[in-house]
């Protein structure tokens, strides 16, 4: 039934100078990958396109969507899904997994330190003003140790690969990283529409996430509670990530609550149930820090729970992630992560940063000024890919204008080389073509850290684009970690 014309999926596919996640030039052939490549080579591209159409309709019907609100109308959009999987071999995964665990450990030790003894600041490893003057630094955390010493229970570490195939960390997400629901749903989609591609291959399962997450949430619950009640706190059905909140609540088997369902009374947190008030022990919250408790943060927040932070500080309830974790994923602090890892763990980073120069340091500034035309210079106080300069794409005038700004406020900037992200074959309008990808593995930490085998592979669907964000034309792929 698949014998339509139009060539096979991989005929004519040419990744050029980029590192290709599928063809792996220069690497010893992996038997599982070779089998996958031969299956793709035998599949007509039209058959793939037909299955892609099935998949898109399926996602829409299942409501695996994010919701965009405009003029009071709710529009459900599908996060574009590309059927051709991104593959990670077992040795590669070992590096990512151990690297992520190492990074999360260092982040939690760093967060504990900056809210207690501040040794790392006294030892001048990182400038104190970057931490204490940081917008995400949270006064209410000072002197408070959350259970297990864990602050960033759910972490998403964005990993990219350069043209030589080297993995490196581009960004840390330690607040409320999203995307894990797509990891699992993408796998289910592959199993529905492309199971023949996977047959006989030892691909590691992603179905354990809810179980592991729930286990971590019970580990951090107040001590002495036999069967802790975990809830997922969502801003509600109008939040664009609402599907993920549903997914997480369902996978953990816990109530999906909104702020109005919770109340703090007699120093404890309760939920309003059909039987009256029932105790709550752990809250996995998908609200921002400043919405969480009108008493502690924004007094106008309607989404949060009055008195929650005080109850937490007294140990009556656990909250994941802790507030104030944003210091650890800040762009300015990112530049110091390799030093932070060495400082707390006395180990070299298993996953390096993208080579980053800190413009507040004289050497870094000098190098950056000398190489503006070939660097990406990023402001450290913003996020989302805006307000930066990409040297190779800038005009002379833009570079000179930027030079003046940089010299006036060097503290506000870091610089990095333009990394040529690895590519993966992707179904496009005119056949299968190389498109740039990144990877967001998810780490769950209660007492220990566990990393979901795989992660969210985001793909820049526009030719040549290096921006994988869903807000800027990105899609996603199923990520296969080979056993």
């Amino acid at each position: 039934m698949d014998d339509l014309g139009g060539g096979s999926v991989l005929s004519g596919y040419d990744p050029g100078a980029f590192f290709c996640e599928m063809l792996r030039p220069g690497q010893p052939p992996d038997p599982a990958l070779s089998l996958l490549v031969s299956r793709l080579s035998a599949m007509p591209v039209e058959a793939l396109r037909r299955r892609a159409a099935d998949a898109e309709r399926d996602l829409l019907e299942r409501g695996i969507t994010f919701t965009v609100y405009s003029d009071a109308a709710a529009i459900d959009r599908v996060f574009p899904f590309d059927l051709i999987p991104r593959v990670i071999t077992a040795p590669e995964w070992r590096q990512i997994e151990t690297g992520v665990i190492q990074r999360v450990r260092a982040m939690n030790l760093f967060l504990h330190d900056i809210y207690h003894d501040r040794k790392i600041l006294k030892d001048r490893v990182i400038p104190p003003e970057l931490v204490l003057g940081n917008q995400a630094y949270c006064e209410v955390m000072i002197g408070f140790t959350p259970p297990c010493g864990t602050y960033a229970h759910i972490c998403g570490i964005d990993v990219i690969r350069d043209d030589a195939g080297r993995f490196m960390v581009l960004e840390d997400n330690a607040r409320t990283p999203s995307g894990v629901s797509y990891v699992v749903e993408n796998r289910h989609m592959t199993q529905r529409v492309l199971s023949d591609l996977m047959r006989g291959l030892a691909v590691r399962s992603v179905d354990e996430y809810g179980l592991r997450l729930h286990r971590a949430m019970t580990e951090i619950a107040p001590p002495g509670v036999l069967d802790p009640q975990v809830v997922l706190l969502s801003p509600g059905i109008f939040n664009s990530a609402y599907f993920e909140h549903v997914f997480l609540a369902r996978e953990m088997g816990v109530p999906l609550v909104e702020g109005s369902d919770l109340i703090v009374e007699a120093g404890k947190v309760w939920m309003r149930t059909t039987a009256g008030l029932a105790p709550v022990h752990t809250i996995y919250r998908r609200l921002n820090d400043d919405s969480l408790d009108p008493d502690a943060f924004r007094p106008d927040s309607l989404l949060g729970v009055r008195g929650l932070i005080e109850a937490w500080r007294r140990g009556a309830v656990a909250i994941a992630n802790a507030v104030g974790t944003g210091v650890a994923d800040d762009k300015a602090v990112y530049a110091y992560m390799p030093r932070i890892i060495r400082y707390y763990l006395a180990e070299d980073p298993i996953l390096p940063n993208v080579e980053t120069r800190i413009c507040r340091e004289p050497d870094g500034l000098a190098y950056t000024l000398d190489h503006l035309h070939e660097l990406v210079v990023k402001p450290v106080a913003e996020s989302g890919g805006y307000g930066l300069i990409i040297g190779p794409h800038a005009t002379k005038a833009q570079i000179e204008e930027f030079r003046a700004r940089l010299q006036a406020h060097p503290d506000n900037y870091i610089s990095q080389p333009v990394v040529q992200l690895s590519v993966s074959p992707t179904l496009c309008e005119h056949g299968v073509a190389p498109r740039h990808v990144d990877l967001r593995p998810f780490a769950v930490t209660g007492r220990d850290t566990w990393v979901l085998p795989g992660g969210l592979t985001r793909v820049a669907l526009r030719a040549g684009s290096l921006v994988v964000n869903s807000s800027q034309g990105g899609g996603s792929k199923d990520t296969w970690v080979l056993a």
Partner: protein
Amino acid sequence: MGAGVSDQIGVNHLIARHAAGLVWLARYMERIENLARLLDVTRTFARDSDDSGSWLSILRINSDETAFFERHSETNADTITRFYLLERGNPSAVQTAIHMARENARMLRALISTEMWLQINIFHGRIRALTEADLVPDHLTAVCTMLKEGTQAHTGITEGTFYRDQCWNFYMIGRYLERADQTTRLLDIKFNALLPSAATSDANVDAGQWNTLLRAAAGYHAYRREHPNGFTPPEVAGFLLLNGLFPRSVRLNLAQLEWHLTQLHGQYHLRGAAMALERLDMLRGLLVTQSIEQILARGLSPFLDYVQSQIGALHGDIMSGLCGE
């Protein structure tokens, strides 16, 4: 902590707001089926498309006269079907019902089965896609069939996939409240209109109308089996009100309602169910201790008004006692 605090361990708690959502989800889905049947039956048995009395009665059953006449001046097949099937913003129209059902289902997505959500989501898309072209007379039955089949698929999927903890009890309470309410409304509006006046004694003319009434309640064939000799007004009213076996009789729905409320009260120790149970006890007593002849002798309309107000109050008891409202 005071009354109303549960400290049981191992109980699967249900958030009060979600319980309310389950009641509403069932009610809205049930409304779509009722409306579809009513439109279809009216179209089939109305003497012609300008039989304004038949079409008007649909408005009266749903208490929609005000909302309707703000938009339309005449009641006929075209305006009524447009009002109920295409226009948005009418609280009892199909577009509103499916929208509200889906919003509730969206809120409840972590609780209902994925199959339930999937079907509601697709059904929603189908209803949203209805256009004027679907309302031409010979196509209206097909639309009504699509609506009935959609809600019946929902009912079947719910029966087959919905986990039967207290969520299910709340859902079923919504369904039975809505059915009991719809049957009283239908009977109230249609019954008096169909009573043979002193001037006409042509029983055959009326047979068609009784037929319509029973079909609108999906009870025609069951009624025939129970009363093969024809239609008498007391028997039809008795069938719809007091029959213990007919799925849409008021009596059966109240009995099922009681069973689910008792479950909540007994199995789940929801003390907030007490008030609703008390009212239900009184209401069922009213139906069980009287024959249809006694009810008719005292006046059907005031009786139905009272039953309807009590069904509304029951909904209120459940919302305030159990759903935190």
